[in-house]
C-alpha cells in the first residue's frame, strides 16, 4: 500500500530518542524508520515502554528539549521537523498535525470550557474571530456526535462523560483539518461499546478529510479494525512491519506471535488459558544485547551460534514488509504451520 515512487507524506528515518536521567541514558527509541502515505492509517503496536508514545511526541516536538537528544530524520510533507524551531513547530501543531491523547479527562484543561479549548486552537491557527471560532467549535462537537452541541459547548470537561470527553478531544484535534492525526491509545480508557463508536467516528472523519492517522495501541483487535499498515515495536525498535493482513495473518516475529497468542478471541476455548509472553519489557537504560527480545523469546535455541544474544537482527524491509529476527523463513513457516495445525485440533 505504501507508495514507493514518490515522497511519502510522513517519513521517519532512523529516529533515535534518548533521555538523559540520573541513572544513565534511556534509549526510548533506537533507530526507527517508517513511512505513512496520505489518507492511510499506520497502527503502532507494542507493550508499555516500547517507545510508541515517545516516537509520536517526538514527531510533534513535545518532548522535554532539555533532557532529550534526538537523532535521525522526520519529514512531514517534505519539511524536516527535528531541526525545526519551536515557533515553526507551534504553527504546525494543532494545524497540520494534531494528537489525541489516551486519558481525555487529564488531557483536557479542567479550567476552561470544552468549547473554549476547541475554539482557541482554531483561533490560533486561522485568526478567526471569537464568534466564528465558537461557531466552529459547536460545529465540530456536532460532527463528533455530542448531543445539543450549542449547549454543551459551554460545559467543562468534568461535566462530560468519558466517551464524550474523548469525542471532544477528537473535535479539538480535528478543528483545523490536520493532515496528520496521531491517536495515542484513544480508546484504552473507554468501555467496548464507546470504543467501537470512537473507532467508527475516526474512520468516518478520515474518509471525510483524507487525514493520515498514526494509531498507537497495545490492542491488536483495534489494529485489525482500523489500520492499513502495522508496525510492531519492541524495546524502542521496530521488530516487524507490513500491511495489516500480512502482520496479523502471517506474522514473522516471535514477539508478534506472542502478542497474537495472548489475545483472547471468540473461538478461543474458555478452558484453555491465554498464552502470555513470559517476562517483562526490557530496561531501556540497559537493554539486552543482540536482539532485545531474546531473553523472553522461546526460539533462541533454534538459532545457531547463540546469535540472538550477540547480534542485532537486521530489519529486512522489502516493499514495506519486513521483520527483525534471526530465524530463517523455513523455521517461521514451520512454526506457523504447527500453530495452524494445533488450532484445528
Amino acid at each position, binding site marked *: 500500500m505504501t507508495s514507493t515512487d514518490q515522497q511519502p507524506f510522513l517519513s521517519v528515518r532512523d529516529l533515535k530518542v534518548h533521555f538523559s536521567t540520573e541513572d544513565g541514558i534511556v534509549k526510548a527509541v533506537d533507530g526507527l524508520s517508517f513511512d505513512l502515505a496520505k489518507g492511510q492509517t499506520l497502527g503502532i503496536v507494542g507493550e508499555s515502554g516500547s517507545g510508541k508514545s515517545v516516537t509520536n511526541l517526538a514527531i*510533534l516536538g*513535545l518532548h522535554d528539549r*532539555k533532557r532529550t537528544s534526538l537523532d535521525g530524520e522526520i519529514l512531514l510533507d517534505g519539511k524536516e521537523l527535528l531541526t525545526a524551531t*519551536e515557533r515553526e513547530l*507551534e*504553527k*504546525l*501543531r*494543532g*494545524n497540520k498535525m*494534531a*494528537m489525541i*491523547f489516551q*486519558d481525555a479527562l*487529564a*488531557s*483536557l*484543561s*479542567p*479550567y*476552561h470550557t470544552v468549547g473554549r*479549548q476547541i475554539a*482557541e*486552537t482554531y483561533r*490560533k*491557527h486561522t485568526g478567526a474571530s471569537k464568534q466564528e471560532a465558537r461557531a466552529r467549535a459547536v460545529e465540530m462537537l456536532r460532527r463528533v456526535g455530542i448531543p445539543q452541541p450549542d449547549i454543551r459547548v459551554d460545559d*467543562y470537561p*468534568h461535566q462530560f462523560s468519558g466517551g464524550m470527553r474523548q469525542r471532544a*478531544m477528537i473535535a*479539538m484535534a480535528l478543528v483545523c483539518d490536520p493532515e496528520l492525526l496521531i491517536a495515542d491509545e484513544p480508546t484504552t480508557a473507554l468501555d467496548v461499546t464507546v470504543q467501537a463508536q470512537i473507532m467508527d467516528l475516526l474512520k468516518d472523519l478520515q474518509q471525510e478529510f483524507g487525514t493520515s492517522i498514526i494509531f498507537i495501541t497495545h490492542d491488536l483487535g483495534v489494529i485489525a479494525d482500523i489500520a492499513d499498515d502495522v508496525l510492531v515495536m519492541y524495546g524502542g525498535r521496530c521488530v516487524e512491519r507490513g500491511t495489516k493482513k500480512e502482520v496479523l495473518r502471517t506474522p514473522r516475529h516471535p514477539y508478534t506471535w506472542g502478542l497474537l497468542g495472548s489475545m483472547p478471541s471468540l473461538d478461543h476455548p474458555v478452558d484453555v488459558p491465554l498464552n502470555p509472553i513470559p517476562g517483562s519489557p526490557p530496561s531501556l537504560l540497559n537493554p539486552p544485547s543482540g536482539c532485545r527480545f531474546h531473553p523472553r523469546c522461546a526460539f533462541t535455541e533454534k538459532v545457531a551460534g547463540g546469535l540472538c544474544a550477540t547480534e542485532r537482527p537486521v530489519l529486512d524491509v522489502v516493499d514495506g514488509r519486513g521483520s527483525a529476527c534471526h530465524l530463517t523463513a523455513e523455521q517461521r513457516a514451520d512454526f506457523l504451520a504447527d500453530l495452524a495445525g494445533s488450532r484445528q485440533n
Partner: protein
Amino acid sequence: MFRFLIRRVIGALVILLVISAVTFFLFYAIPRDPARMACGKVCDAELLEQVRVNLGIADPMPVQYWHWLQGIFVGRDYTGIGHCNAPCLGYSFTNSEPVFETIKTDLPTTISLALGAAFFFLIIGVGAGMIAAVKQGTWMDKTASSLSLLGSSLQIYFVGYIAMFFLVQQLGVLDPPSYTPFTENPGAWVSGLLLPWLVLSIIFTANYTRMTRSQLVEQLSEDYVRTARAKGLSGRNVFFRFAWRGAMGPIVTIFGIDMGTLIGGAIITESTFSLQGLGTRAVRAVTDSDLPMLLGVTVVAATAIVFANILVDLVYALIDPRIRLA
C-alpha cells in the same frame, strides 16, 4: 453561590459567637477584679459596688455577656455615661474610651501593614517561584531555593531589629517605622511602613517561592499542559493560562491563611516596630485586665480571619470550575 455564602456567613457568626464567649468567660478565670483596680486607693464597699455598676460588671456573668452581645446589635445603656450606639463594644476599663472608636483608629495600621507586606511578598515570592520553575535546575533555581530556605528560618524580631539598626540607624536609607494615614499623606504612609513591609516580606516570601515553584513544576508536567502545547499554543500562553491557573489554587489558600495571621497575629510585628495597631492594643488590654478592649480586639481579629477564609473559598471556586460551592 448565594446559598454557599449564606451558609458560610452563618457558620462564621457561630464561630465568632463561640470565640467571644470563650474569651469572655476565660477573662473571669483571671484572679483580678477590674472594679477594685478602677476604684483606686480610697475605696469602700459602697463605692466599689458603684464602680461595678458603672463598668457594667455588677450583673451575673451570663447577663453581662448578653448585654455585651446586645451592645453590638442594638447598643446599650451605661449608668453614669449614657447610651452607647450600636455597634457598641463597650468602654475601656482603663481610659473609658469607647472600644469601637479605639479599634477604628488602630485597625488601619494593622491592615496597612498586612496589605503592604502582601504586595511585596506576593510579587517577589511568586515571581521568584515562577523563575525557579521555568529555569529548573539552573543557578537561578538553586539561588531562589536556598534563599527561600534561609528566609523561612528567620524571625521578625530578629530581622526587624537588624534591619532597623543597619538600614535606619547606620545607613539612614529608610525612615524609622511610623504610621501616617494613607488619606493624609500617601508618601509618608509608604516611607513610614516600608521597613516593616520589607522585613515581613523576607519572612513570608520564602513560603511563596517554594509553593509557586513546586506547584508550577507539578502543573507543567500535567497532561493538559501537554495538550495545550500539542494544540500549537505558545509557551507563554501555556504557562500563564494553563499551568499557572492550576498552580494558583493552593497559593491563594496559603495567602488567605497568611492574611489572617498578619491581621490577627500582628502583635510581634507591631511591638518590634513600635507601631500602635491591633496587636499592641491586645497585649495592653491583657496586661491591664481591660475586658471590653480585649473582647473587641479579639472579635475584630477573628472576624478578619474567618472572612478571609470565606473569600479564599470564593476565589478558589472562581479559579477552578470543578469546585462547586454548595
